Each structure stands twice: as structure tokens, then as C-alpha cells.
């Protein structure tokens, strides 16, 4: 089977829209399935699904998104996993698009396309596609964003890195992306494949209070992994990302100081220096300093939020 779409839910009404968007895909029916992880703790809260063969339901007991998604992934039969939220939707033709992309890039572990944000009248408020391809660890550690809702992940790679980390609550999708990018490659299609609805219910299950801290903790843990520095360096392309690497290490010095880990902070300071030295001539370029200074890299979630603000003002 090509692809399993995993939708964790706590029983919100938008779920049927998400499920329908998958079932309506024009693609060989035996090659994809939907797995609904009902994490509401109430086995009776979901309507029985019509197309029961291709929709499987597993009932977890309020374990939060990470564990719910991991459980869904464990029962999945597809070679690729697509993690959708119950208030999102995939676009017509999306699975087909990924099928060709997977055929073109069989080595890639993370495949993604464009993402749209629409309002309740289906007006497109924002659309993003960061366009990254190949080894992208440096770019993703530097802040590039490959939205999980518009990505499929190779099942073997997902389990090799251990799936979603339940200790990271706010930004577990970014954490997963970083861990997969550390060892694997990414592939991109220009087509938009998924859309998020911006409404009153949008992303209510994300803990935005914890998100910034979790993001830093996840980044710090990855930099601890053996050979992280070498991986970061080998995926650096262009002066901008050299500057970005230096920033990544710089910011972890600060983080470790705040955590009272002075020795580790000193270690990171050494690596900051090393990253700067290894950038070579790049440090004389404008791009390097732009990368070092930028709060957010192009294509990241931050700019989607900006677009939305602008759309709201109009």
C-alpha cells in the first residue's frame, strides 16, 4: 500500500470533512487508507463510517497528539504516512501528486508540497512552499518549515527516528522533521496538496505557550546527538545558511546558560567558533550576515501568520 493517512481526533465535527477529502481522492483504492485515532477517550463518540474497509478506527485513551499519531502509525499499512489533523483537508489530486514525487525521489524520507490557508468561504488567504530539496538538515535547523499537514513521511524512516516524541508537546511536528532531516533527504512538489482552515477552531490543540521552549529544547537535544555538527555542515548550501548555522549554535549557548548548563554552553561556544571558521570566505558576504541576523527564514510559519494578518486587515 502506498499511503496511510492518519487523523487523530478528539471528536470535532470537522473530522468528516478531513476524512472525505481523503476518500474522494482519485487513486487506486487499494493503495491508500484512512486511520482515525479517536483520542477522545469515548469509544462511542464517532459515527460509524460508511466505507469501513478503507477507514480504520483505533480508540486511544486521551494520550495527546504524539502518542495518538504514533499509535496510528503503528497500525498503518502504507509505505508512507500522512499525518493530518481533524480540521485540515487534503486537496484533490494530492495523493497522485505524491505518487509521482515518490517515484521520482525514492531515496527521500520526507516528501512535501505546498500548503494553503483558507477561510470558511474557501478563499485562499495564504499559500507557502519553501521549495527545499535534498539534504536539508541545516535549513530545517535554521528555521525552514515543511508543514506536516502537506507532507508524507516514509514509514521506515518514521520508525527509525522513533516517531513523534511525546516530551515535545508544542512543536512535535517540527521536532520530527528535524530528526528525519538529520539522516535523510527531502523532496518537494510545487503543487499545493493540503489546506488548513482558518476559523475559530483553528489549531486549538496546539499548546502555544509551550511551543517556543519546546522548539529550543528539541533543537538542543538534536545538537547533542553524535555527529550532529558534521551533518549540519554537510547540508549547508550557500552563504546565507552558513550564517544560519552560526546563529543556531549561538542561540543554544544562550539556552544552555539559562538552563544552568555552563559546560555545555562553553562547548557550544567552541562549535559556534568552528562553524564561523568553516564558513570561510562566506563571512565576508552580505548573505552570511543576513542569515545570522534574520529572526525568521523565508517560507516559515511566521510569514504565513503575517500574510494572514494582512488578509485580515483588508
Amino acid at each position, binding site marked *: 500500500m502506498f499511503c496511510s493517512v492518519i487523523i487523530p481526533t478528539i471528536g470535532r465535527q470537522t473530522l468528516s470533512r478531513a476524512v472525505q477529502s481523503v476518500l474522494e481522492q482519485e487513486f487506486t483504492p487499494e493503495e491508500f487508507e484512512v486511520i482515525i485515532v479517536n483520542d477522545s477517550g469515548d469509544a462511542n463518540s464517532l459515527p460509524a463510517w460508511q466505507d469501513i474497509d478503507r477507514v480504520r478506527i*483505533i*480508540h*486511544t*485513551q486521551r*494520550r495527546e497528539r504524539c*502518542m*495518538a499519531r*504514533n*499509535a496510528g502509525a*503503528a*497500525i*498503518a*499499512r502504507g509505505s508512507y504516512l500522512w499525518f493530518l489533523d481533524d480540521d485540515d483537508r487534503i486537496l484533490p489530486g494530492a495523493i497522485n501528486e505524491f505518487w509521482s514525487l515518490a517515484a521520482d525521489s525514492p531515496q527521500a524520507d520526507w516528501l512535501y508540497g505546498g500548503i494553503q490557508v483558507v477561510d470558511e468561504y474557501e478563499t485562499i488567504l495564504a499559500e507557502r512552499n519553501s521549495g527545499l530539496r535534498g539534504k536539508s538538515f541545516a535549513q530545517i535547523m535554521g528555521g525552514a518549515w515543511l508543514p506536516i499537514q502537506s507532507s508524507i513521511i516514509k514509514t521506515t524512516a518514521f*520508525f*527509525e*527516528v*522513533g*516517531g513523534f*516524541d*511525546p*516530551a515535545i508537546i508544542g512543536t512535535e511536528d517540527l521536532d520530527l522533521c528535524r530528526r528525519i532531516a538529520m539522516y535523510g533527504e527531502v523532496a518537494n512538489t510545487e503543487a499545493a496538496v493540503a489546506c488548513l482552515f482558518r476559523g475559530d477552531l483553528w489549531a486549538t490543540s496546539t499548546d502555544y505557550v509551550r511551543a517556543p521552549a519546546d522548539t529550543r529544547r528539541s533543537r538542543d*537535544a538534536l545538537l*547533542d*546527538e*553524535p*555527529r550532529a555538527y558534521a551533518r549540519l555542515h554537510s547540508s549547508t548550501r550557500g552563504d546565507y545558511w552558513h550564517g544560519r548555522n552560526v546563529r543556531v549554535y549561538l542561540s543554544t549557548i544562550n539556552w544552555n546558560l539559562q538552563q544552568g548548563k555552563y*559546560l*555545555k554552553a*562553553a*562547548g*557550544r561556544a*567552541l562549535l559556534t567558533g568552528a562553524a564561523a571558521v568553516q564558513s570561510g570566505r562566506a563571512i565576508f558576504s552580505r548573505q552570511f550576515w543576513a542569515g545570522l541576523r534574520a529572526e525568521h527564514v523565508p517560507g516559515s510559519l511566521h510569514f504565513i501568520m503575517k500574510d494572514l494578518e494582512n488578509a485580515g486587515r483588508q
Partner: protein
Amino acid sequence: MFCSTIIPTVGRPSLYQAVASVLDQQSSNDADFEVIVVNDSGKTLPFADWQSSERVTLVDTNRHERSVARNTGASIARGKYLHFLDDDDWMAPNALQSFWNLARNNDAGWLYGTSQLVDRQHTALIELHHKLDGNVFLQAMAGEWIPLQASLIQSQLFFAIGGFNPRLSGPEDIDLLRRAALVTDFAKTSDLVAFVVMGEVGSTTDYDSHPLASRWAREKILDSPHVLSRLRQGATSSYWHGRLSRIYLTSAFWNLQNRRPSAAFSRAFTSAGTLFEAGSSLLSGAYWSALTKPYQSETFARGIEAAQGQSASSVKQIL
């Protein structure tokens, strides 16, 4: 619900006995329980009468090894406590009652009882009577092992520490034990609660699959907050002072070999600190033998001694 027993299986015939040993539990009070069989064989299990029991939930995962299968089982479990059994092991007849009695006046996150190790032919080898109680973190980090089959883990605790590490296959139980011991106390009952089959034949454990991941898991634990203070509480004798120094010393070497100089330095520094703190223990032979020799479980040694003769020699062979 009191307890969920989670049994991952690759479809071995011994599964029947494992499930039956749980369903046959006699419980005089309302110690409600369920069995979750996680079929990780990738194929449909042949029908057996236990599948129609109301207490049983069957979930099919798709060949993902034990950690993932167990985490999946835990996610759907409803019990306050989780019990992880393997498909070739089985529970002692009154185990649930023993645990219920233990849990009634104890809020420790990890409960355990006596286990009997048996060989493939189900001949008794040795019994493990652990003496671990309360804060067992130092012992766990040194290398002590309590079989999961003989343990009940609070579900809340299990999820708070993130469940089994799916990157480990083989030492994932020791890793869980350590992460649990860091944050919770242990409590024991001396009743026999589980029979555990030893021996490699047909075992799904792959001890060599991820040596790096396994050592790395240990390093991650040492990086967690409050580790040192919890370890120090366990250093109550010269011997355990020596063990504590050894934990940091071996970690320093590992980090040096794996080119993590700042971590290596930090561990060596801590190791020196523990040496300093050991004080007069430094004069005892126990300290130095603990510092220089790999860990040998006293529980196993006692078990072997008690068994003697035939079974003792066969257990030595297996271990």
C-alpha cells in the same frame, strides 16, 4: 479499571497460555482488568476462544518491534496500571490479587513482585527476589534489572516519561526502568507474580541492533535534570559510592570516544566530585572493586546460590 495487561505477539503458539494466565486471575474484589493483545506479526491471528472474551482487545500493528507495539497497546489501555507481558511468559495464579493488595496502601509508580525464570522447556531455573525499594535509581543505572513481566507501572507515569523508546530493541525495558526510577519510587511484594522464559531461541530480542542507540539512551538519562541528586540518595554504602563514580567515569570515556568533549569533561568533573564525596569510603576495598568491575546483580547471584545443582549450571549457561 485497575490493570491492563499488554501482550505484544508475533503469533507464537505460547500466546494462548499467556492470555489464559491473565484471564484466569482470581480476584476477590473489584480489581477490574483487561488484556490487550498487540498482534505485530503483520498477519491475522488464527482464531482462538480468548478472542471472544469481553476482557480482550486485539489490535494489529504492522511489524514494528516490541517498543512500538507496547506503546500502541498502552495508548488504548484503560487501566490505572500497565502490565507488559510477553507472548511466551505467563502470570502466576494470584498475581493480580498480590498487586491489588500492594497498590492499596502504596502510591509508588512502579510495583513489582518475585519472578521465576524458566527455560524453554518450562523447567524452573531460579527465582528473583529483588530487595529494591523506594529510590532505586542508582541500582537501575548500575545495571539492575527487574522483569517487566513481574511489574505494574502506573499508566500516568508511563506516559509522563514518554513510554518505551522505539529506537531501542532489546534494552528498551532497562531504559524504561531507569527513566521511571528517576522520577518515581518502587514498591515490592514478595509473592511470586510471573514466570519468565529465558533463552535466545526464537526470542524477538535483538541485543545488538542498536548499540549506539542503547548507550545514547543512557547518556540522555544522565543529561536529565535532578539526576545527580537522585543518584546520590542511593549511595548509602562504600560499594554504592563506587558504583556512582563508575557510572560517571564510564560515561566520560564514552563521550570522549564519541567526540563530545564538553560532555566528557562534565562527566569526568562529576565523577571526581563523587570521589571526593565518597570520603572515607575510599579506604575500603568495596569502593574500588565497585569502581573497577562491571556490575554483577546480587539478586541473580542469590538466585543461583539458592537453586544450586543442575538448574544453577544451566542458568549460568543461558545468562
